[in-house]
Every structure is written in C-alpha cells, then in structure tokens.
C-alpha cells in the first residue's frame, strides 16, 4: 500500500484521475483507517486532509456552503444551520468529531450516518469534481445504497451547498443504545416552516431504509395542517409503514415499528411545539 499526501484540489483531482479505483480518499480517517486493515497492497491512500481549499464553511447570500473537510466538531460549533449542528454534535465521541468530516460522512454512505439525514432534509446539493469537470447532484440521488454512492472512480466530493433554512423550525433526533459514542439505530431530521399551519415540511430519516431519504407520504400528511398530537401521530404511523415498505418485515420490526412512529412524533414536536 502507498501513501500520497496532497495539499491542493487540482493536485488531488490529478491524483484521483491517475489512481482511479485504487486511490482511497482519506479525509478524517475514522471510517477509512479500520477499513483498510488487511486490504490489498495495490491501493494508494490519497490523503486530502491537508487540502485547505476543501475546509471552508460559509453562510452568505441565502446559501450555506460546507467544504467536505469540515469536521463534525466544527459543524457542531457553528451556526451554519441548527439541524446540521445538532446532527454533527451527536456523532461518535469528541475525538471522532474532531477527526471525522462531513464529506466523509456523505461519501462513506453508511445508512446510519448522522449528518446525512440532516443534509437530506436541508435539500443539500453536492458539488462533484474530477480533472475533467464538475457536476452537481442532489444528495438523495448521490446515495445509491448502503455504502454505495454515485461517485465515479476519478471523482472527489468538493463541496456541499444548500439554501439557508432561514426561519425554519428544525429538529434532529437520534436513537442509540447509549448517549455517548453510539451508532444510530434510527435517526430523524425535520426542516419546515410554520405560519399557523405547517408548510414545506421535510422529514428525512436514516437507518429506516437502505439510504437516508425523505418520506413524501409523511410530509404529505403534515402539509397545511395545524401542528398537534393527532397529526404527528398520523405522520408517525405513516413513517412506520414507509419503513416496512422499504426494508421489509425483519426480526427487529416488532421493536422498530412503534419506535419509528414514536420518534417521528417526537422529532416533529421538537421542531414545531413551543
């Protein structure tokens, strides 16, 4: 195995074009380093962690722009968007949050990634770069399956952009086996507006389907309604139905079915009550 450290985006893109599939992009290393143990010797670790061009975090002109190398700790401490900060603060441990990056969370595409559902609820668009050019992809289209993305062998995630959810009510809720250093069993992110009635509510969840995604059936129940226990319970039941439709009935379903419904209600209460 070889190691290549790059310090600029053009250098990173040139290296990725040359290395293709054998170039393993290293950002924070929290997922990559355990994964490469015992991996074949032909790979090259392409360490982009020192590429300063990819560590920006800006909020201006109605947009939030997040460089893929922004760490969870930095996002958690920022006011980029509350739902992103809450999701980032729930990742792993302080040490993991100091190392792990938002771009890594997206590109690793774990179904239980914490920041990803928050980005989905925010309608994030990914800027994908290669030596040959650039394209933009909505995050939901980028996620192809558990640990599978739309990223081609010569491409690198170079940016994450979203509309600044000004005035939005938001909430993030995570179910883990304990509070600290815990992998999500399920997580939920809500972004929406309230002007007497619910408007443009986006409900995203992780670990309830093969990829983090929005649930239009749940959102449809909420649109135009006055927030309250009844409509939130109905949305929760719809979430459970969607989960079973997406993932099938499994050994864990008797537990997850009522829990997904209750957590959906709670995340909606977190966003819209009070």
């Amino acid at each position, binding site marked *: 195995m070889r190691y290549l450290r790059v310090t600029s985006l053009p250098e990173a893109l040139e290296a990725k074009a040359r290395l293709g599939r054998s170039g393993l992009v290293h950002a924070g290393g929290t997922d990559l380093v*355990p994964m490469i143990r015992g991996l074949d010797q032909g790979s090259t670790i392409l360490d982009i962690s020192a590429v300063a061009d990819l560590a920006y975090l800006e909020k201006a002109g109605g947009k939030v722009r997040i460089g893929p190398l922004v760490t969870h700790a930095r996002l958690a401490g920022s006011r980029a968007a509350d739902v992103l900060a809450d999701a980032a603060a729930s990742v792993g441990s302080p040490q993991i949050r100091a190392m792990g990056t938002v771009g890594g969370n997206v590109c690793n595409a774990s179904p239980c990634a914490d920041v990803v559902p928050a980005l989905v609820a925010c309608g994030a668009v990914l800027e994908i770069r290669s030596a040959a050019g650039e394209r933009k992809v909505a995050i939901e289209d980028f996620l192809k399956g558990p640990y599978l993305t739309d990223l081609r062998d010569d491409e690198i995630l170079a940016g994450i952009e979203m509309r600044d959810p000004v005035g939005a009510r938001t909430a993030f809720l995570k179910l883990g086996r304990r509070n600290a250093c815990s992998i999500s069993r399920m997580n939920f992110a809500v972004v929406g507006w309230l002007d007497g009635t619910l408007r443009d509510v986006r409900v995203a969840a992780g670990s309830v389907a093969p990829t983090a995604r929005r649930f239009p059936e749940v959102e449809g129940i909420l649109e135009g309604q006055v927030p309250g226990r009844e409509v939130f319970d109905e949305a929760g039941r719809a979430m459970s139905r969607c989960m079973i439709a997406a993932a099938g009935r499994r050994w864990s379903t008797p537990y997850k079915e009522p829990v997904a419904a209750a957590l959906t209600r709670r995340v909606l209460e977190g966003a819209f009550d009070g």
Partner: protein
Amino acid sequence: MASVSFMLNGEPVAIEVRAEQTLLDVLRNVIGMTGTKAGCKVGECGACTVIVDGEAVLSCLYLAGKVEGRSVETIEGLSRDGLHPLQAAFLEEDAVACGFCTPGMIMSAKALLDANPRPSDEEIKVAISGNLCRCTGYVPIVNAIRKVR
C-alpha cells in the same frame, strides 16, 4: 514509505512511516513511548487518545502520514517536571484503578482544560464521553478533573 516531520511533546521528530501505519503504532512501536494505550483499535474506547494541534484525537485511527507539520502531545509530555496537576489530582481522587484508560482519559481532560480552563461538570462529562473506564464508575475521574479546573 512516507517521510513525516512533526513535533512530539515539544521535540522535533522526523521518521519514515508505512502508508497504513497509525500514529498509535508509531508512538508505541517505533518511538517506544508506550504510555499511549492500544485498546480496541477501532475508535471506540479512547485509550489511545493523544492531542494533535490542541484537539483530542484517537491515535488508533490517525494515519501517521497525517501528522506531517503538526504538533502531538502524549501522556509522556505531561510529567517532565514532576506530575502534571491532572496526574496529581487523579492520584489524590483515586481516579486510577487498573490504569489502562488513564493516559487517554488525562489527555482528553487536558485538551478540555487547555481550551476551556473553567469547564462545567457537564462539559467535563462530554469531554471524557469518548473514553471508556470499566473500573472506577467515572465519579472519581470527574472529581479529579473538577479539582484542576
């Protein structure tokens, strides 16, 4: 192999490392500083915690190549002029039982106190939430850190 130069406990170090080698492996098996402990090696226990550029990180997940140009602090860097106040407090408060988690726990506490010299109890608990201890029940550890704040 890749060459890396970094500061280790205030002293310059220049060595050759393998691509997949971690900072933990370099510290313990190349440099011979075994104060940093190898626990789970997958980022869950915090025993390998060291401070890089002021932040507590997991040396088991930290590629050695990535320390280029950075400043690393380990438990060995704390006690060159007698015990560090955190080490003294851990002894006074009986915050050490088997001792395996202690170096990582102290490095997490030091990173907290360096950035925030007067942390609340909650901030202390969050700062050590990535460090497992199976002996003490954490109460004496929190008491020890509270004593130094």
